[in-house]
């Protein structure tokens, strides 16, 4: 048994080490054998006029990520950045040229839970604004690599929804340097949903001292309102006494100095979220949105942006929200900015397209839209000069279920099903 286990484990390692150790032409041969139907050339020059690790990618279709395409298109990468994008680029001398069928930006999961070690929420309190997910990230977690292989190059790792005011999420790359932060603390996560009641329910009366408010949504609403009210009062009449970090964060929040994200799934929770937001003058980004299709006019009126995680075959948790497959299409029709999030991004985009979401909009919902919603469109989310070289190469139409990912690039570094270069 031990033998088999160790043997299996060893199977994971050679890809990476061989990739680093063996010279490029050998790999080129392997790749040519593997994808015999493709014209695929790798050359071993590591520097050129386009910078270190320069590479020119020639694609039949370049999906820019913002809804537009180049057909055909070329992308010049160097120094981990996209140097140029055009229909045709004259290859600099000695540059490595890669030919692929279709190219998209790396995918961005705006609501991820990967890599968190030791619990993504505090068990003993409902209000933990000064907690930071980044403190619990295990960068050695193999899930990061699995994300890369699935084309997800950036993840917004969020606290879980057990707490009403849960703490700060972090935004980082799944590949490249370790850790590869875009922003260690992006914004404060709130839960305007049933989840924080989950651990506090009891059959009838609270049976132990460890059952706390909230035991239902009325309590969730109260905790949110009371803490926001206190923060407003503390901001209006600051005391000279030393303020705790948590109080300072809450004060910053009601003054709009920190970004706020709030998880709501049912239509009435979404409405409640915006009712509370209006009462206290905060502008949260909505996360969840299972029943967003019921309140499209509310989202429109609130100029909401939505990190949509309701693209699932089953309702989440005890809420049993009513899900619809065409919610992404309806959001797009209503011109509500949204990202598809919560892992399996490529599958989500493919299904969203299957259920009526226009092709390039579906790709934008996992690339440029999450980048914009998270405020990092200057770094990631599109294939444009100056942005990070985070790319996904496909052997065919990315939205076809049968189209394989050929390789994934993070900051100019290629990950190819284990054969990293």
């Amino acid at each position, binding site marked *: 048994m031990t033998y088999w286990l160790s043997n299996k484990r060893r199977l994971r390692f050679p890809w990476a080490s061989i990739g680093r150790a063996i010279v490029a032409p050998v790999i080129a041969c392997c790749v040519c054998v593997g994808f015999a139907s493709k014209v695929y050339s790798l050359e071993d020059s590591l520097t050129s006029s386009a910078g270190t690790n320069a590479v020119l990618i020639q694609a039949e279709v370049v999906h820019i990520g913002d809804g537009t395409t180049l057909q055909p298109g070329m992308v010049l990468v160097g120094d981990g950045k996209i140097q140029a994008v055009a229909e045709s680029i004259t290859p600099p001398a000695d540059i490595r040229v890669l030919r692929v069928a279709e190219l998209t930006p790396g995918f961005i999961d705006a609501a991820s839970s990967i890599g968190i070690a030791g619990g993504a929420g505090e068990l003993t309190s409902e209000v933990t604004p000064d907690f930071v997910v980044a403190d619990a990230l295990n960068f050695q977690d193999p899930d990061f690599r699995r994300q890369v292989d699935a084309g997800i190059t950036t993840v917004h790792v969020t606290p879980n929804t057990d707490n009403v005011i849960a703490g700060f999420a972090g935004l980082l790359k799944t590949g490249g340097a370790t850790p590869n932060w875009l922003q260690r603390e992006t914004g404060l996560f709130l839960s305007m949903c*049933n989840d924080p009641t989950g651990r506090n329910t009891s059959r009838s009366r*609270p049976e132990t001292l460890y059952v706390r*408010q*909230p035991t239902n949504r*009325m309590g969730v609403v109260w905790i949110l309102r009371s803490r926001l009210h206190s923060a407003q009062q503390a901001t209006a009449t600051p005391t000279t006494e030393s303020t705790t970090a948590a109080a300072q964060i809450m004060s910053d929040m009601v003054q709009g100095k920190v970004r706020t994200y709030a998880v709501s799934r049912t239509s*009435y929770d979404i409405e409640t979220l915006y*009712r509370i937001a209006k009462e206290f003058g905060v502008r949260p980004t909505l996360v969840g949105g299972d029943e967003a299709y*019921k309140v499209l006019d509310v989202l429109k009126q609130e100029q909401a942006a939505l990190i949509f995680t309701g693209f699932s075959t089953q309702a989440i948790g005890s809420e049993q929200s009513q899900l619809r497959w065409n919610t992404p299409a309806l959001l797009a029709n209503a011109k509500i900015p949204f990202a598809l999030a919560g892992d399996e991004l490529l599958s989500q985009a493919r299904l969203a397209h299957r*259920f009526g979401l226009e092709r390039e909009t579906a790709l934008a919902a996992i690339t440029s839209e999450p980048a914009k919603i998270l405020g990092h469109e200057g770094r990631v989310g599109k294939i444009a000069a100056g942005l990070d070289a985070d790319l996904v190469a496909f052997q065919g139409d990315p939205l076809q279920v049968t189209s394989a990912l050929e390789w994934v690039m993070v900051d100019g570094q290629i990950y190819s099903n284990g054969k990293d270069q």
Partner: protein
Amino acid sequence: MSNRFLTPLPPTSRKSFTRRVPIWLRCGLMLLLCLAPATTVPADESNETAPIQAGANDEPKPESTVIDSRGPAPKLAILVGKLITCAGPNIDGGTILVADGKIQAVGPSNEIAIPEGYEVIDHREHFAMPGLVEAHCHTAGSGDLNEMVYQTNPELRNWDQIIPHNPRLQVAIAGGVTTVCQIPGSGTNMGGWGVLMKTGPGRPEEVIIRAPGVLKIAQAGNPERTGGEVGSGRIGMNHVIRQQLLEGQLYVRQWDEYEAGHRATKPEVDLRLEYFKPLFRREIPILVHTQQFQVVQSTLRILHDEMNLKIIIGHGTFDAYFLGEEVRKRGIPVMAGPRGFRYDPELGQIRGIVAEYDARGVEGLGVNTDSPVIPEEELAFQATMAVRFGWTEERAIRGLTIEPAKALMIDHRVGSLEVGKDADIVILTGSIIDPRQHVKQVFIDGRNVYNTAVDRRRF
């Protein structure tokens, strides 16, 4: 005017869809429905009003039915065979003019001319009455009824969890219910603040009549604590309720004094106690979960006599009606139920709760379903049973409409068909007290929300 409630109007000759349309055409229509292409735009909620089983239940679709929309409210002239206004004698052959969601005119048809531009809706074979008002409902929102940690919860409100026009309310409408008092449960002594709302479609802000609508207090028979806290019995629970009300009273008094200029410093806003302001200013009532003689006695003693608050006796069941005289003296309304009867061991007889209060002269009398304890659409059956046990039919109809509206302090909006009030109108085949009759059409705020001629009959 003669009261012929229990005499239904004679059936009119009408041909059903199934008799008029040949079988081959019906089969073809069904096939067309089945083959309708799947679309990426969802079957929107309004699809539920589509004639799913055309011809199965009712007559064909009339030409001029107003289907609900949130556009401008239509101008309607509704002609009815019998008009029960709950604000005066019944009228044979009446007209209701509706504009901007309000009742513009109501009276005998020969006294009301129909102005230009009004859509005429012909219900001359039917009765019209005000929409029913439910004083005790738990089905207008999610299941978040009881927040169980603290024994009193004045910081909690329930209008963040309402789900307007949810499937249960859609059926309630088919029972004629157009307004409900949605309240927290009785798991704690003070469950939180309830909301008064219409049962029709719309955003929460559109359907809410008043928020906070009522305070929910439960005095006994549910909120007893078993975990070692104060409030294991009635003495303790009354202590807990009193302490919480005193805290609220002090808070409101400070604000009242400040606002009247008798206090220099502005009190600090305490979000937890804010909703006590309308309560202690007697602008909203307490819906009290109280039943049995002793419990109702303490309701009168503490909440009314001592705290000087507006209250509604929210159950008043078991032997509490022996306090009817005391209730009458104080002018306190009783919205009785859901259990409407009691076995009197001395008489060896079943007594009707409502009739017993009525016999003792209690004025503001009504019934409730405590839905889902009794389904919301069966509110009228509660009144029917009260009549079965000795209440009068005329008072029972008021007990479904204007009396709960008065008790809830929203009778300026709903509860009767009077000029200026909300056009919440129920059209039915006869008296609502007669369980053989059924609701034909319902208007809320002047908009059609249910029409058996178009929808399936839901109840």
